[in-house]
């Protein structure tokens, strides 16, 4: 499975990519903000992990833009962010985000959320 990892922090991208490798996912592409991610996105991407607070285009705007694209309607989106206010989380749900992880996260949490999203996606496809 190929992941698109979007975060303006190089440190966070490395941690997420390394965590993915640890749990068995080695195919990743990276982007530093929403705009770059929209340019990077294509049909080969099967899972998106994005931060919220980024310059140029935020993660929430990226999620909305992705959902507006014909090729981005179904791709699972996992948001990994510091934003923990109730209204922010609800905004993410409304934007079409499939699951949500608060930073700082642990690799088992990352695996658990990816598994949950994939299970729901598989159920919807069946």
């Amino acid at each position, binding site marked *: 499975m190929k992941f698109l990892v979007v975060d303006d922090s190089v440190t966070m991208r*490395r941690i997420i990519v390394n965590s993915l490798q640890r749990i068995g996912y080695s195919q990743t592409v990276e982007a530093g903000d929403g705009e770059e991610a929209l340019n990077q996105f294509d049909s080969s991407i099967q899972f998106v992990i994005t931060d919220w607070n980024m*310059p140029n285009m935020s993660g929430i705007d990226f999620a909305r833009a992705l959902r507006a694209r014909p090729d981005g309607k179904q791709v699972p989106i996992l948001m990994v962010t510091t934003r*923990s206010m109730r209204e922010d989380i*609800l905004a993410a749900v409304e934007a079409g985000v499939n*699951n*949500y992880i608060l930073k700082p996260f642990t690799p088992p949490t990352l695996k658990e959320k990816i598994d949950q999203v994939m299970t729901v996606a598989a159920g919807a496809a069946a």
Partner: protein
Amino acid sequence: MTARSASELLFDSEASLRLVDNAIGEFKPDPVDGDEAEQVKFGDLESLTKLPQTLFRAYNEIRSILERLRVSRSILEQSAMDKLAHMHDKLKEVSSATELAATDILDGLDRSVAMVDELDTIAETPDDAARGTEIRGRMREELFGLMVHLQFQDITTQQLAYASSVIMDMEQRLAQLASIFDPSTMKVDEAYTQAPTTVAFDPEASNSDASDRQALADSLFTVKR
């Protein structure tokens, strides 16, 4: 009270000061030439009769300005104190998060060094290969854990960006206030204060209560999904 309404109040105060300035200007006789100048100096009775009225208007304007300045001051004080208090909390969090991460990383390094010592001991007994494999596995997990602790860097970057934005905001407010009294006394580098920050940040970014915050997110996603 928003920054916009605070700046509107400052603008109103400035406008009132200009009105006073105009009112005072009315005292000045129009510039005249030659003999007439002497006449105006001693004989502008019309201006003198208007003096009480003008003074009364000036008094009312000044009273109104003082009232507006009092309101402006309390608004600025309130918003500034709230923001500064929040900033202070965030800076304390940066300090404690840095220390916590450093301690966790040092603990992990201690455990890793102990495992290397164990591997050295095992190397002298070649029959214990299984135990060596087990130790190397634990050590990999330990080293990976050290990397995960470095997430604090992303969170403290956001906390420091928030603190920086509060300082810039305070600087702009002080400059606005100072410019009411004398625009030439305080010059702020506009390019600096109005430059958009390149770091997008969450003012509430935190390292603490991670499990509680995750539980809230999980509950909302479960309900809404």
